[in-house]
């Protein structure tokens, strides 16, 4: 995987560059480009939507809305800092969670734009990580979480539950849930950064030393 990056956090990998060039064409109104993007990400998108909604028909609607949202808003994201993949799957995730929440009896949805703008989709802060981690390495990172932390994160991400709802569902105090969510995410981040030093042939030594100790300073550039 060809990947280089400058000191200020823009994700730079051959895979994302290719996606971004396609996204420019999507922004220009080229249907072929949208088709290309769809064909590349349809399985991940649908799988996430299905896991969250547990309803095939609703999942299809979610994916359709998400790609339509991407179609309409591509011009706002071509200069986004995170990867195109992250942006797209974030749209799917948001819409799936909203669809699930709408199904529930008392629902008050936050005012969200249909599609998170570039600002609200956060940059991938580890450019060398983008695309370099396989599912086995992510699984390994997850083992660094406690069971209750993992459960809290899964309930939040896939269940679309708020912290209060997680507290009720698991019979835990709200403060405990907040702590599990926060510490779980931090632990996963440490584990994922640690993996960068291991797997990547080119950057091995540098990554373990310099980058894992670097504060996220470059990320907001």
């Amino acid at each position, binding site marked *: 995987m060809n990947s*280089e990056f400058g000191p200020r956090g823009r994700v730079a990998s051959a895979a994302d560059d290719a996606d971004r060039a396609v996204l420019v064409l999507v922004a220009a109104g080229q249907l072929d480009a949208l088709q290309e993007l769809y064909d590349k990400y349809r399985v991940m998108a649908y799988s*996430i939507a299905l896991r969250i909604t547990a309803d095939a028909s609703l999942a299809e609607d979610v994916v359709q809305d998400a790609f339509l949202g991407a179609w*309409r808003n591509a011009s706002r994201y071509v200069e986004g800092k995170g990867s195109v993949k992250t942006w797209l799957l974030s749209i799917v995730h948001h819409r799936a969670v909203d669809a699930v929440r709408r199904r529930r009896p008392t629902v008050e949805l936050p005012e969200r734009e249909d599609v998170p703008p570039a600002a609200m989709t956060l940059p991938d802060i580890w450019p060398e990580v983008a695309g370099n981690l396989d599912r086995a390495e*992510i699984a390994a990172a997850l083992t660094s979480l406690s069971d209750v932390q993992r459960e809290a994160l899964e309930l939040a991400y896939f269940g679309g539950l708020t912290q209060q709802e997680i507290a009720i569902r698991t019979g835990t105090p709200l403060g405990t849930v907040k702590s599990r969510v926060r510490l779980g995410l931090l632990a996963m981040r440490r584990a994922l950064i640690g993996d960068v030093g291991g797997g990547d042939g080119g950057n091995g030594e540098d990554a373990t030393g310099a980058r894992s100790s670097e504060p996220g300073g470059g990320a907001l550039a």
Partner: protein
Amino acid sequence: MTHDTARGLAAAYVLGALEPAEETAVREHLRTCAEPHDEFAELGGVVPYLAEIPGLELVEPPASLRDRIMAAAAADLAERRAATPTAPAGAPPAGAPRSTVPFPSAAERAERTGRGAGTLGWAARIAAVVAIVVLGGWNLVLQGQLSDARAYDRAVAAVIDAAGKPGNQTVVLTPTKDGRGAGIAAVTADGSVVMALRDLPATTGTQVYEAWVIAAGSPAPVPVGGFTVGPTGTAAFTTQPVATPPGSTIALSLEPSAGSTTPRGTIVATGVSTAPKS
């Protein structure tokens, strides 16, 4: 909401696990607070990996879904085109941007067609553009430099417009190991490259950024024009026309002074021109 309170809610926010009122409050804080919010980026970076949790069953959607999406997109495109004015015809003067009228920003176009992201109005969309630059750590004063944010938005729109024309190529510029600066560009029919760039350190004294085309199959970089960059770090620039076949490298270097015939300074960003798949 105070800055510290918002920071404490970063993990739950990036997961979408806040109560609606809290989430709105954090979102508003991010929009208006000029302090850095590193936690949001750091923790936000983790969330996409949750999507790839092993144990997520990968399922192929039905083929009919693709048809529905493409049909809806085509309909949306037809509506957009019916509502916006067409670009002026004829070739622009060399070195000028493609349109001879100020190209409306993506936000302005969306507003005009009555479409666009969600149900928020024009004010919120401006806010979204400003939010982009605030989170970028530029610490812009909302009022004074909004016009710069809009100008940059227009530059991006110009690139998108050029990239969409038949036969034109797209370039994604990313920083080199020693460089800073990123952007998108389109190579037009006459070989000139329309660029929208950001994150460029400002030029001082006689410094200029020079653009180079290294055509596929020809090793020598050809200078195609230079520009200076101010405190916003953005630039909108169109190069002189030169043969730029697909697979050419577009490079930006920071030169100590103008007029180099070969790069003397650091090459800060590069990209490769790609033709659309047909």
